[in-house]
């Protein structure tokens, strides 16, 4: 049971199911950035209070830069270099761990408090066998070697790894990402900790693996009465696993409460917007992004941190930070002056939610027949056949390793060894870039996955965007500049961005620059490879709406590659489902997602974490 420790008494948060003491109680936790090189002390995390009972999972939700990981480490009594814990308490089973000495903390970690990091592959030692690493954990915490072999089998069984043959003699790289994460969980649960902190443990796993890992975490927490803090930026995952949710914004809790209540009737405008940015599997809806960026430590506004981006802001909001206000006896509270009103809005219509029909399809623009590709001797794509109608968006979905990215690279000419027939606007498309006509090169453009790698860090936004133009057309520098500004505004960026360098931009802005670079040549087909997978959900929503809008206005065709099925529903007209380099199903989005004919598609759909959102439905 979780209650905001700041406002109400502990007793007032007691619901029907809650008995027993708190496992974890965080009170007014504050983490500061130590002053250095002329920078003043600023708070990174402040006034964070929440409680977790044994056997329950608290989902800590926040976007990049909100202080999630700083929080997670602070729960272990640790801060990164340059930060200090400024105040507050982290009470685990009645003991405040913050005043402990480093040696005491060391003893407590693993035994009482365990941590599961985001990337399992970097958490395991690549040179040691799994068995050795698990034994090390047991030896470190239990000392005697007596029942160790039995405990080892038990540990593996707990995380569902006992059926994997020879796992103890495997090295980490021989296991899949899901298996590695299970080993991480086995280690974390080995000594029956009272509290376990999970820092985005399923990021990077595909949905099927993710669902199984989440189930394992839930079961273990319940059977051993472990309190868990599950940190994630993925609201749907948190909805799936958490009993309680705490929403972190700019280092403070915006809202905290029982998961069902927060998801059904959010009390803070930020939570409300976040929920509306999440695409749904059941409906093609307009996604709402959030304009602007969360304020960084040191430049946070004096009043409510969210006020500059808030649609509900009042003049009073600028005066001072609003207190935590309770909106329901279950402990649901939010740091907002209008929390009561906003809760009441739950389910109320809020503008157009359902997506209006797009432009009608025209003749096929891209026709792919029997496309096959190999890497060395390994076959990656086998006999792909599909078409992309004009003015339509075709989503290509599949898990990692299904060949999605290879397909994109084949189409844009980066993987020049494929076989098959690809016709673009009536003309054959050759495998390599070299033999394509200038017109073909211009009309097919590509936006890649990671906005942090997509832009040359040594060039300004202007240089980056005008490069394709300079290559294809002879224009004066003035004309080029005008086109750059037009492309920037098409990507919803201001002219003032032209002289910035990529490292001065946020992830979403970088992706917009990459889109502007693709748009400046006025292409007919845009190939988007996982363009939102590195972005926060609110930024993803904004980028998806941008692409959708551009597609409608300019009559663009689009191939949208993704592993995110709900996103497909919101952006695409047609969908191609890939598995192991083959197409296992294709058709109109509504048809495939509502009545999948292929078993693999059905499985994927069943594994997608689902979240019922009550806001933003028109």
């Amino acid at each position: 049971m979780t209650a905001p420790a700041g406002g109400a008494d502990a007793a007032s948060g007691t619901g029907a199911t809650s008995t027993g003491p708190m496992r974890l109680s965080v009170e007014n936790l504050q983490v500061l950035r130590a002053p250095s090189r002329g920078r003043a002390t600023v708070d990174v995390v402040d006034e964070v209070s929440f409680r977790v009972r044994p056997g329950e999972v608290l989902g800590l939700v926040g976007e990049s830069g909100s202080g999630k990981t700083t929080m997670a480490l602070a729960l272990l009594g640790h801060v990164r270099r340059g930060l200090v814990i400024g105040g507050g308490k982290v009470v685990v089973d009645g003991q405040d761990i913050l005043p402990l000495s480093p040696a005491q903390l060391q003893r407590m970690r693993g035994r009482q408090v365990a941590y599961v990091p985001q990337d399992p592959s970097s958490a395991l030692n690549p040179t040691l066998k799994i068995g050795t690493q698990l034994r090390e954990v047991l030896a470190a915490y239990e000392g005697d070697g007596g029942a160790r072999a039995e405990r080892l089998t038990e540990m593996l069984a707990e995380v569902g790894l006992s059926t994997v043959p020879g796992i103890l003699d495997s090295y980490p790289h021989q296991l899949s990402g899901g298996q590695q994460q299970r080993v991480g969980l086995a280690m974390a649960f080995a000594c029956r900790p009272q509290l376990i902190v999970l820092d985005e443990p399923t990021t990077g796993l595909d949905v099927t693996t993710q669902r199984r890992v989440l189930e394992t975490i839930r079961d273990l927490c319940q059977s051993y009465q472990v309190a868990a803090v599950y940190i994630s930026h993925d609201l749907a995952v948190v909805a799936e696993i958490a009993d309680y949710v705490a929403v972190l914004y700019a280092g403070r809790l915006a809202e905290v409460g029982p998961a069902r209540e927060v998801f059904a009737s959010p009390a803070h405008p930020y939570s409300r917007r976040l929920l509306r940015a999440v695409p749904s599997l059941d409906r093609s809806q307009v996604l709402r992004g959030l304009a602007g960026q969360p304020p960084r430590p040191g430049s946070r506004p004096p009043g409510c941190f969210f006020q500059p981006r808030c649609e509900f802001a009042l003049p009073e909001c600028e005066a001072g930070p609003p207190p935590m206000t309770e909106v329901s006896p279950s402990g649901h509270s939010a740091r907002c002056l209008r929390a009561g009103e906003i809760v009441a809005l739950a389910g109320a219509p809020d503008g157009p939610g359902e997506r209006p029909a797009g432009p009608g399809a025209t003749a096929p623009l891209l026709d792919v027949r029997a496309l096959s590709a190999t890497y060395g001797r390994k076959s990656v794509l086998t006999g792909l056949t599909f078409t992309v109608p004009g003015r339509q968006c075709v989503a290509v979905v599949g898990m990692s390793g299904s060949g999605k990215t290879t397909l994109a690279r084949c189409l844009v000419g980066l993987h020049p060894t494929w076989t098959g027939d690809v016709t673009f606007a009536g003309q054959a498309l050759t495998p390599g870039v070299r033999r394509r006509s200038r017109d073909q090169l211009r009309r097919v453009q590509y936006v890649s996955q990671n906005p942090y790698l997509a832009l040359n860090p040594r060039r300004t936004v202007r240089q980056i965007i005008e490069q394709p133009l300079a290559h294809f057309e002879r224009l004066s520098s003035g004309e080029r500049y005008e086109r750059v500004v037009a492309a920037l505004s098409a990507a919803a960026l201001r002219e003032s961005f032209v002289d910035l360098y990529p490292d001065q931009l946020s992830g979403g802005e970088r992706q917009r620059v990459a889109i502007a670079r693709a748009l400046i040549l006025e292409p007919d087909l845009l190939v988007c490879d996982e363009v939102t997978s590195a972005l926060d959900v609110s930024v993803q929503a904004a980028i998806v709406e941008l692409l959708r809008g551009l597609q409608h206005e300019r009559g663009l065709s689009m191939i949208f590659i993704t592993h995110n099925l709900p996103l497909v529903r919101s952006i695409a007209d047609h969908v191609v489902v890939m598995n192991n380099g083959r197409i296992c199903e294709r058709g109109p989005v509504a048809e495939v997602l509502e009545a999948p004919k292929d078993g693999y598609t059905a499985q994927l759909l069943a594994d997608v974490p689902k979240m019922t959102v009550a806001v933003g439905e028109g």
Partner: protein
Amino acid sequence: MTSNASLAVLQSAGRGRARRREWVAVLGRAVRTGRGAAGLAIVGVVVLIAAIGPALAPYPSTSFVTAPFANPSLKFPLGADTLGRDVLSRTLDGGWQLLLMAAVATLLGVAAGAIIGVAAAYFGGRWDTLMMRAVDVILAFPQLVFALLLVSILGPKIWLIVLAVAISHAPQVARVIRAGALDVCERDFVRAAQILGMPARKVIRREVLPNLTSVLMVELGLRLTYSILVIAGLSFLGFGLQPPTASWGLMINENRIGLVANPWAVLAPTLLIAALTIGMNTLTDAIARASLGVGRQADDAVLPGLVVAGAGQ
């Protein structure tokens, strides 16, 4: 608020600021550290001696002005050498050719190595294998031995020494640059240029090379140190500038028999060469650290949640 209006235009206020070229920035950072300042000061003094020394020399460097191995005196502050020439004058006059040769050899070697390394990384596959195996063959020879081999076959000509030293640098530079370029060539902005059908030479020049600036700077510094050592070494062995020309390496060889009589005839050029290489190495080290710092700051921006000055708002 419709979705388009709400995300309509994002702000960029306060972020527009002019930026210096990367190599200027890295050099600036390096020199501001104690290590960099010390390195630069030492190198600066030696280079100054070598550059304006010939004009300051009190006697012609090849005239016999006193007795062989005369002790230092007011008239001859560093005494005389094996043939009775003024050691101070010869020291002042004997550096510029060494420095010039080392600089040219380094530039040639690093340029050739960079071209080979970037090309191998960019084209990959068979080209990569072919170039790198060729590089391995040259690498099998120790640098000095390789230069000696060329010079002893073709004769001690200045241009040949410079060329030999340059060639002996190229494979090592190629290895380092290839490793750096492999990473850059995999990035999406390089692909974005490739799918436009841009010629490789243009992609390399515009997209790849600017991202290797700091690696190239460190290589230049490091190779310059080696060039000085090898050329001075060759000169000591009698390949290089021929007597009676003054040259630091040669002076050490000529005067070592009189080490007891007038140690300055050996010590002066030795100290200068030592100071030059130590200074150059210290400066290069500072540059390497400074460029790492620059890189780390860029990486921080990639990690969500970390605070980076200047990247925010």
